[in-house]
């Protein structure tokens, strides 16, 4: 029961208080780049959730049983980025072959995710937050996966809200110098400010 409560807390924290995009600045490029339309924003977010959970599911055991067991923690960065890159390629090939409909909707976004800092950031952060010093493997693994899922959903929520904001902005009269990216960033600032209101709601 305690564990279930912890899982719900982790997921809520990932969505509201520790939102990767709006409070940790991870995954800003897709947040600014593909949030023009709601459906592309949703496609990108779905791909991010998918890859984030999958890569954490692979990297967390590798950190525990390979890198830490052999004292190779300093190779973490290089090992994780290669695993994520290989995984994204693999997922693309598998989807193309067996689930072409899903590939048609997610496929476009998959290669972009290799260099998305939210995915690598999540894989590294969970090994620090749910490290072997505090949690056993089973417990840590479950928490790490829920953290990946929660953060992915947080990304989706931020993208969905921001896509709406940007649509409204299209009909606005904007000063010449602020047109384009600057006003988008100022709008992102306001969305991030609204998320500050959640701080303290979830206690970890």
């Amino acid at each position, binding site marked *: 029961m305690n564990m279930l409560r912890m899982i719900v807390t982790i997921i809520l924290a990932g969505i509201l208080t520790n939102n990767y995009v*709006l*409070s*940790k*600045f*991870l*995954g*800003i*490029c897709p947040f*600014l*780049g593909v949030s023009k339309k709601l459906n592309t924003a949703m496609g990108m977010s779905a791909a991010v959730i998918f890859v984030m959970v999958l890569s954490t599911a692979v990297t967390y055991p590798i950190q525990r049983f390979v890198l830490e067991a052999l004292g190779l923690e*300093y*190779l*973490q*960065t*290089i090992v994780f*980025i*290669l695993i994520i*890159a290989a995984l994204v390629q693999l997922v693309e090939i598998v989807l193309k072959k067996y689930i072409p409909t899903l590939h048609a909707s997610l*496929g*476009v976004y*998959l*290669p*972009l995710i*290799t*260099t*998305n*800092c939210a995915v*690598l*950031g999540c894989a*590294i*952060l969970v090994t620090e937050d749910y490290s072997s010093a505090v949690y056993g493997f089973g417990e840590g693994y479950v928490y790490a996966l829920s953290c990946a899922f929660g953060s992915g959903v947080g990304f989706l929520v931020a993208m969905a809200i921001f896509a709406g904001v940007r649509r409204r902005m299209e009909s606005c009269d904007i000063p*010449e*110098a*602020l*047109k*384009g*990216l*600057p*006003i*988008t*960033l*100022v709008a*992102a*600032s*306001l969305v*991030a*400010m609204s*998320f*500050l209101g959640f701080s303290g709601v979830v206690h970890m």
Partner: protein
Amino acid sequence: MAKKTISMRKDSQEDSVAVIEEAQVTQTENEAAPAEKNAPAPESKVKAAETFGSAMKRGVILENPVLRLVLGTCPTLATTTAASNAIGMGIAATLVLICSNTVISLLRNIIPDKVRIPAYITIIASFVSIVQMLVKAFAPALDESLGIYLPLIVVNCIILGRAEMYASKHAPALSALDGLAMGVGFTTALLCMGTIREILGAGSIFGAKLPILSSQPVLFFSLAPGGFFVFGLLIAAANKLSKKNNLPVRNGCGDCPAAATCSLSGKGGCK
């Protein structure tokens, strides 16, 4: 095989922006200069100095990676709560950029075209690990404040972007210079933003308290929303100063750093 790829790359290079073209034309001229053994030494020295100056101007002003090309937004927003953090991040990224550009340029004719992106990522990740260990050993306080963003230099678009756009087409010395110039441009933009945010958000500069501001700091600027806000206004100011709205004209995907990994690039691009 190798010759083919080189010629293909040169073709794609021709599509790039006029600004880049100009800069590259001057640089290819200079690249050719050292090859002429009979050329008088002083002249080539003057040319080298020009290259250094023009490369710096390009990296810091014309094609500032943060304010003009808008690459590497994540570390820009995350590590600029204080000016000292911004400089630390800038120097770390510059080191990685110089080393990875040099090595990628040295290996540019050996790496097969199809696997170049994984190869680049591996090279970049190795240098990031080295820098990470150096920072941990010699500047533990910086390591503490940069945290997750230090390993995340791996996925910083500036580094992969320069590898793909510049180092894979130019000689090692020029690539190292380009890395230095882009790194200095990155550091300058970060420092600019870090100073503004530290003065307004914490009422201090490089940790030294300022008289009136420190009693009433505007917390907004230290928090996440302030990062977006200051960044937006800085880009607006850069646009205003350069009298050109938004980015330099993008010519399809030829100029986009993500083009190599983007599946849309084969289908006419995302715009």
